[in-house]
């Protein structure tokens, strides 16, 4: 299994964020995407997740049933945690487990794995920002999907929780998974490639003849 991205370009309004971006990510490796604010890290992840359309270029995931449409092979963890505050942590996670399909860990096991054991019955609204983020990370564990797209995964996590998540991510990579993570924090995900999006910024970012 490998993720192949060719000649990808992303436009927001009249500005080209990056252009001609290409990389190949082998199974069992993580790609750490870095770059200053506004270089398109989040946009790249949304494009890979199928939530946004690229301006140009193609991507595919070899070794899956549908290489050109690998949305169902993908976990997307964006800035937003995708929880419902009125539901309990357990209800939220159980819902995503049923919704995403291909169940892996049970709800209880996943909550223990991210260190939320004992908080199952609390409404998400009363959890702290870090606990909400951990619950979002637990979503990655309840459904089996090989490609993890992580946008600043360790936001609001304390040092211990960051280390714990690093272990989970390394285990995923070691089991033949793939991770693409956009981050400013130093993350240790095991065998890593680096991608500095700042280097892919086009020489003339403003597209002429295009209305915003």
């Amino acid at each position, binding site marked *: 299994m490998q993720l192949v991205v060719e000649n990808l370009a992303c436009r927001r309004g009249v500005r080209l964020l990056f252009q001609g971006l290409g990389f190949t990510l082998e199974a069992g490796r993580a790609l750490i995407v870095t770059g200053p604010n506004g270089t398109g890290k989040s946009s790249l992840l949304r494009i890979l997740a199928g939530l946004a359309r690229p301006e140009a270029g193609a991507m595919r995931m070899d070794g899956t049933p549908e290489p050109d449409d690998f949305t*169902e092979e993908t976990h997307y963890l964006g800035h937003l945690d995708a929880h419902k505050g009125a539901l309990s942590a357990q209800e939220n996670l159980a819902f995503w487990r049923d*919704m995403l399909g291909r169940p892996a860990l049970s709800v209880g096991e996943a909550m223990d794995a991210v260190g939320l054991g004992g908080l199952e019955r609390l409404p998400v609204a009363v959890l702290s920002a870090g606990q909400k983020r951990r619950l979002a990370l637990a979503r990655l564990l309840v459904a089996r999907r090989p490609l993890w797209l992580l946008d600043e995964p360790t936001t609001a996590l304390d040092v211990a929780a960051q280390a714990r998540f690093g272990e989970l991510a390394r285990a995923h990579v070691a089991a033949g998974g793939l991770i693409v993570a956009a981050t400013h924090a130093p993350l240790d995900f095991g065998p890593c490639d680096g991608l500095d999006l700042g280097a892919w910024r086009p020489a003339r970012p403003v597209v002429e003849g295009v209305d915003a």
Partner: protein
Amino acid sequence: MRRAFGALLVRDLRLALRAGGGAGLGVVFFLAVVVVTPFAIGPDLALLARIGPAILWIGALLASLIGLDRLFAADAEDGSLDVLSMGALPLELVAAAKGLAHWIATGLPLVVAAPVLALLLNLAPASIGALTLTLLVGTPAITFLGLIGAAFAAVFRRGGLLVAVLVMPLTIPVLIFAVAATSTALGGTVPFGTPFRILLGLSLAAMVLGPIAAAAALRVARD
């Protein structure tokens, strides 16, 4: 896929029924419209019995539109919609599950409340039966047509007004045939079945086309 559909249905029902979910708002609005009308029209019982079905239907129509603007917008704002659209369930069925949950939480209580409220408007027993039947068949049409407006409200971020402006014209045929079917119960040359079957057809069409159009609108948002 059935499991995902059921999970989404149960989640949305739970959210609607918990505090702040707004499931009861539609019924209260419905009640307010029906209770206020006799005061405005005056104590003419014959007149009330004649226009009663129309008033109940207008009330039910407006009450069905309450809360639609938040249906997809709430999921878009907390990031759920992104993850939902990557699940095993196609976006069309996501929209259908949310529509069904919304109807059970807001439309079904209107159907249950209607016979009681119809007494306030001096409706004849035959009329009450016909009205309840048309509400049972017609309110899903309004909810599922409303999905289209709900999807646009989520796409354009602020769209409370959009729902009313987009959805109201689409619901006019439902209103016409529903009220026509109810008035046949009071006599006339047209049998109840004629307008009622058209209403049934409108409802079935809305249940299929509404989620498809809503999913298309949600996909447009991915620029």
